[in-house]
């Protein structure tokens, strides 16, 4: 089937999509956007978090067809050219990135949190990021990064 979808502000079209493909697969393998990650593909780890119509979701559990005529924003769509989003900048500075496989999902989820709650408390940050698994950092520097980004936005 053919899927028309707006991705990072651009109208995109994916052809020959097999019905069983997820939005994640379509983004990664058909639209050249592998930034959203495939760590569990069961909605358990949050590494594939993207905005779907401005709401963060796990792209792995969205059937490709569900994205028809909708708007998707991925981690690749956060920076303005060379200028990183403050959340991205803070993740690098705070040492919140080790292997980085969880990072795209966390960056999108943290971006959404700060859009909704500009100065979140620690418990609010933790609750917002509870659907994103990280195995390298023990999360402390991720919290640092979100606090840092909040202070700059």
């Amino acid at each position, binding site marked *: 089937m053919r899927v028309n979808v707006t991705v990072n502000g651009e109208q995109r079209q994916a052809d020959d999509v097999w019905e069983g493909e997820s939005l994640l697969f379509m983004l990664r393998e058909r639209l050249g956007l592998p930034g959203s990650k495939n760590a569990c593909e069961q909605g*358990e780890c949050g590494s594939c978090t993207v905005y779907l119509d401005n709401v963060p979701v796990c792209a792995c559990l969205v059937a490709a067809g*569900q994205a028809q005529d909708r708007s998707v924003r991925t981690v690749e769509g956060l920076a303005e050219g060379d200028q990183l989003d403050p959340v991205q900048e803070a993740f690098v500075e705070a040492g919140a990135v080790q292997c980085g496989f969880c990072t795209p999902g966390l960056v999108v989820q943290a971006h959404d949190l700060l859009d909704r709650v500009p100065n979140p408390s620690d418990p609010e940050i933790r609750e917002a990021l*509870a659907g994103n698994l990280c195995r390298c950092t023990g999360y402390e520097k991720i919290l640092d990064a979100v606090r840092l980004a909040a202070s700059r936005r």
Partner: protein
Amino acid sequence: MHAFDYAAASTVRGALDLAGPGSAFLAGGTTLVDLMKLDVLTPDRVIDVNALPLKGIRLHDGALRIGALERMSDVAAHPVVRSVHPVISKALLLSASGQVRNMASIGGNLMQRTRCDYFRDVTSACNKRRPGSGCPALTGVNRNHAVLGTSDSCVATHASDVAVAFVALDAQVVLRSKDGDRVAPLEEFYRLPGSTPDRENVLGPGELIAEVVVPVLPWARHSTYLKIRDRQSYEFALTSVAAAVDVKRGVVQDVRLAAGGVAAKPWRLRAVEEALKGGVAIERTFAEAAESAVDGARPLAHNAFKTALLKRTIVRALLDAAGAR
């Protein structure tokens, strides 16, 4: 994944016309897509119902009415839900993760399947997935399984949190088919496994959940949902309890209680409710009443702890809902 047709419907009629044996409705997709990847569900046709007009959250005729396609996150955050039935909001917020709640619908949540690993593993026997093939959970790894409402065919738990709250509140579901609407109490919507664990509810072929109707119970503003799980977040219940208590002058006037994580379906605790009515709202009353919660329980090798844990969970929930702590 099994091959299938993908069709999108924009009207209920259209969706029902497309439906047939071997078809499945797709709302949020968080259960369906997951189980299709595992080949647990193999529909020939998937009907995307997201464009159907089954939305809206409103108070009408003494009831809170929630459209089946409302997202879990929207329902949880809705001011009317939070003020009229906070237990619904709490149960939703203790389910899954933010990202999943943003996709998953209320109707889909009620239709979610068990987390039994044998059900999810297509190389295993499972009476629910392949009737007559057997139930390895009876003698296998059954720590997470049910102790109430089980049968020799199936010991799986029902996985939903919000259904527990709904059942406590006497919620009904509006079921829509080409023949029109019918209404069923949610508690009776779900079937016990018996010898046919593959038939989990009373939904007929070509029928879908249109709406959830929750009677308003003014005193149920004092309600809570609490959940025991293996980590702080994003995990299914070992035990959970939805509780609403009406206490006047220290005496329990009325109460609604249901449990999750322990039973084959969301488990209303009527005997406990009866034992509580007229009692003094203190911990000892709650503990004594909770004893009957596990009448008829059939613990397995690895989940016997759930019976005592359920009773303690009930006590904590009552303390919280009664404001006694």
